[in-house]
């Protein structure tokens, strides 16, 4: 069945309608709001499948449908929809994962008083993300991008009565805004230098060869960068903010303050995926400067190194966290670093493949964590959990699958294949091998901290009252887990026995099988990570919640530093905050002494003339005026009776006076 690109708007419109329904029904309309949200998401999933079917018929084509949004004078601002395999795969993933998360939320948020608002926000979130995916214009993408930011703000701060949640929402919003400023500047610059923001426009779009050649031809005055590099880096700023890359990763772990389904949605399907998707979407622009050998900096090199730093940093910090959701959050930071790394080393197909597989198993892990938290009465500290494996068998089994997929346990799990693709691409990169080493180190750490999480949460015996009374959740929460777990395994088929997905995404790319030696190396590393994790945490489970962490006793300084997240929050408070207040005091000084001084001088002068004036006045002119002013005062008193203080009355008088005047003019005119 053929699905035209001009009808792509249906996909984001469906959840948007659900959000509108959710906004309009009264607070008691819980069933209607949640039903509309889930139904629209499932419908959007089927439409996306149809779109995918169409896109795969001709993977190389970029079917675009453009239209004029509004005319400004002679020019027009044009937007459009774009259907290609990248969009279609992402849409299918987002709608599928979101549907399951929505269903899971039915159970998780059951007792919440603002249940219907929650579904309204969730639908808005999904709608914004889907709009971002189908956009064929950087402007439309930016609009949806900001809507995603807004919805995430609403959802992270959903429990706004908790001060930490309100602060986290604010932090997420402001931090991403810093990146978005770069994005906006890049967007304006791009519009200024090309006159278009459409991606594909029959040869005139910004991602098409003619425009890119023109952009790479221009060189900036300073630094010798080409314009395309500068614009690419500015756009990358937006992706850094949204995808939680170093140095703007600080908001992502705090975003855990939202309800767990929101965390799953942010970390898996929508928010953070947006940044990776953006770079993959504008990949031709990002890589346009690759054809020039003599520029000082390629945009993608920056992307690769930022990704490598983020991957390693996130994995390191995750080792020392104790909150089940925070561990997963830092693992998301680390995995996003992998994706950026893959983009940077030139394999955007590997990045998107990892994005897809990661979406499934990270949603699975978060929903599993949500299931644990829900069962253990909102206990999130893994030191106080423990022994849940026997009580929550389905959650345990599915969580284990997710953990193995994330760690990259070989062959059976999708995470292995996508990670392998990234490592392979990093190996092939001829600029530097540092990102590869960072990636390999992160493989060990990922396996290690995930094993620790499993061992602490599900093995041993329960270490607190809450986890002792945990029991398995209802089917509405476990069925999504099972479905996601199945997907976490089945998605391996996209890459094995042949890299089918990557070929569909980019038919022009030559795909050779990955090197056997690299694969063996990464399998060994995974084994080392899991083995050491089990040796430290699994063999001898923690006895009570207070018993010390084996690693902490071994290297207390390092673990404490990592647990404090390497002090990034404090660093920002000390530098950015200081800088801001420094500028404020400087402005204050200028105001008080320089401008204020000038004003005071003027005032003194005015005072002096006033004194001179008064002297002449009192001594010469006064006498005659006194009697006149006495009479005027009398008249004034008489008139002031009319000032009743009733403003309405004044207005009525004005209106009636106007009527009389008009009548006078009209009747006078007819004479």
């Amino acid at each position, binding site marked *: 069945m053929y699905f035209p690109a001009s009808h792509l708007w249906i996909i984001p419109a469906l959840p948007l309608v659900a959000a509108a329904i959710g906004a309009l029904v009264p607070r008691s309309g819980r069933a209607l709001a949640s039903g509309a949200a889930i139904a629209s998401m499932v419908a959007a999933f089927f439409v996306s499948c149809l779109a995918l079917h169409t896109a795969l018929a001709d993977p190389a084509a970029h079917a675009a449908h453009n239209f004029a949004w509004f005319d400004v004078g002679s020019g027009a601002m044009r937007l459009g929809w774009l259907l290609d395999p990248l969009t279609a795969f992402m849409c299918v993933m987002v709608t599928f994962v979101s549907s399951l998360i929505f269903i899971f939320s039915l159970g998780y948020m059951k007792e919440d008083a603002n249940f219907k608002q929650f579904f309204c926000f969730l639908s808005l979130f999904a709608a914004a993300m889907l709009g971002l995916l189908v956009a064929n214009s950087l402007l439309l993408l930016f609009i949806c991008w900001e809507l995603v930011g807004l919805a995430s703000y609403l959802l992270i701060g959903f429990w706004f009565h908790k001060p930490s949640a309100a602060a986290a929402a604010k932090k997420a919003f402001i931090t991403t805004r810093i990146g978005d400023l770069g994005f906006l500047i890049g967007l304006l610059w791009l519009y200024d230098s090309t006159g278009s923001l459409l991606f594909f426009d029959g040869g005139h779009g910004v991602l098409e060869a003619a425009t890119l050649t023109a952009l790479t031809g221009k060189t900036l005055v300073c630094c010798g960068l080409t314009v395309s590099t500068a614009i690419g880096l500015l756009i990358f700023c937006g992706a850094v903010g949204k995808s939680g890359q170093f140095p703007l990763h600080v908001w992502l772990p705090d975003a855990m303050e939202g309800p767990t389904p929101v965390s799953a949605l942010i970390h898996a399907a929508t928010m953070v995926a947006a940044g990776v998707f953006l770079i993959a979407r504008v990949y031709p622009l990002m890589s346009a400067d690759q054809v020039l050998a003599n520029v000082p900096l390629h945009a993608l090199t920056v992307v690769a190194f930022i990704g490598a730093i983020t991957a390693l940093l996130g994995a390191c910090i995750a080792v020392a966290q104790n909150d089940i959701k925070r561990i997963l959050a830092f693992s998301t930071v680390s995995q996003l670093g992998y994706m950026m790394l893959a983009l940077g080393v030139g394999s955007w197909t590997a990045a998107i493949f990892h994005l897809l597989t990661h979406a499934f198993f990270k949603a699975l892990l978060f929903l599993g964590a949500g299931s644990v938290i829900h069962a253990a009465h909102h206990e999130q500290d893994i030191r106080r959990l423990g022994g849940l494996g026997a009580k929550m068998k389905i959650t345990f089994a599915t969580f284990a699958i997710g953990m193995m997929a994330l760690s990259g346990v070989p062959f059976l799990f999708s995470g292995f294949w996508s990670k392998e693709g990234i490592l392979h691409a990093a190996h092939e990169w001829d600029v530097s091998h540092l990102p590869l080493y960072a990636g390999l180190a992160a493989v060990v750490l990922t396996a290690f901290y995930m094993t620790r999480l499993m061992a602490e949460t599900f093995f041993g015996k329960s270490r607190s009252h809450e986890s002792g009374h945990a029991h398995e959740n209802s089917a509405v929460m476990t069925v999504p887990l099972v479905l996601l777990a199945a997907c976490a395994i089945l998605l391996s088929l996209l890459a094995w026995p042949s890299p089918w997905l990557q070929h569909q995404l980019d038919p022009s790319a030559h795909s050779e099988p990955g090197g056997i030696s690299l694969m063996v190396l990464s399998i060994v590393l995974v084994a080392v990570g899991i083995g050491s994790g089990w040796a430290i945490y699994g063999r001898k489970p923690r006895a009570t919640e207070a018993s010390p962490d084996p690693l902490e006793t071994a290297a207390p300084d390092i673990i404490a530093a990592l647990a404090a997240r390497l002090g990034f929050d404090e660093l920002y408070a000390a530098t950015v905050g200081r800088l801001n207040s420094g500028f404020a005091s400087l402005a204050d000084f200028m105001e008080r002494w320089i401008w204020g001084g000038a004003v005071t001088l003027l005032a003194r002068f005015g005072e002096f003339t006033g004194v001179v004036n008064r002297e002449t006045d009192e001594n010469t002119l006064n006498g005659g005026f006194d009697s006149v002013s006495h009479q005027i005062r009398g008249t004034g*008193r008489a*008139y*002031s*009776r*009319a*000032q*009743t*203080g*009733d*403003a*309405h009355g004044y*207005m*009525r008088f004005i*209106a009636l006076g106007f009527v009389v005047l008009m009548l006078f003019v009209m009747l006078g005119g007819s004479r």
Partner: protein
Amino acid sequence: MSQLQLCLVLSSFLFCIGLIGAMARSNTILVLLGVELMLNAANINFIAFWRYGPDHAAGTGILFVLFSIAIAASEAAVGLALVIAVYRHQKNIRLQEANRLKG
């Protein structure tokens, strides 16, 4: 009835709605909003006469409306600040009670 006349009828009705609101309601905020409506009605008139007038290129109507919007915005800002100041003094914003300066 020509389209110009329709526009003018629209604007005069809007003006009168604003006027009645300003005269009938006691809440100062609503009175201010009524005044805003009257300004908007005047703007509609300007645009209508520009649209059907003889000299489009001069754009006088549009320019006038732009200035008028700027003035309306400052009026709203100052007016609402006044409302807040009044509220602070008399603990309510009933216009008929803000008559301390009467003669």
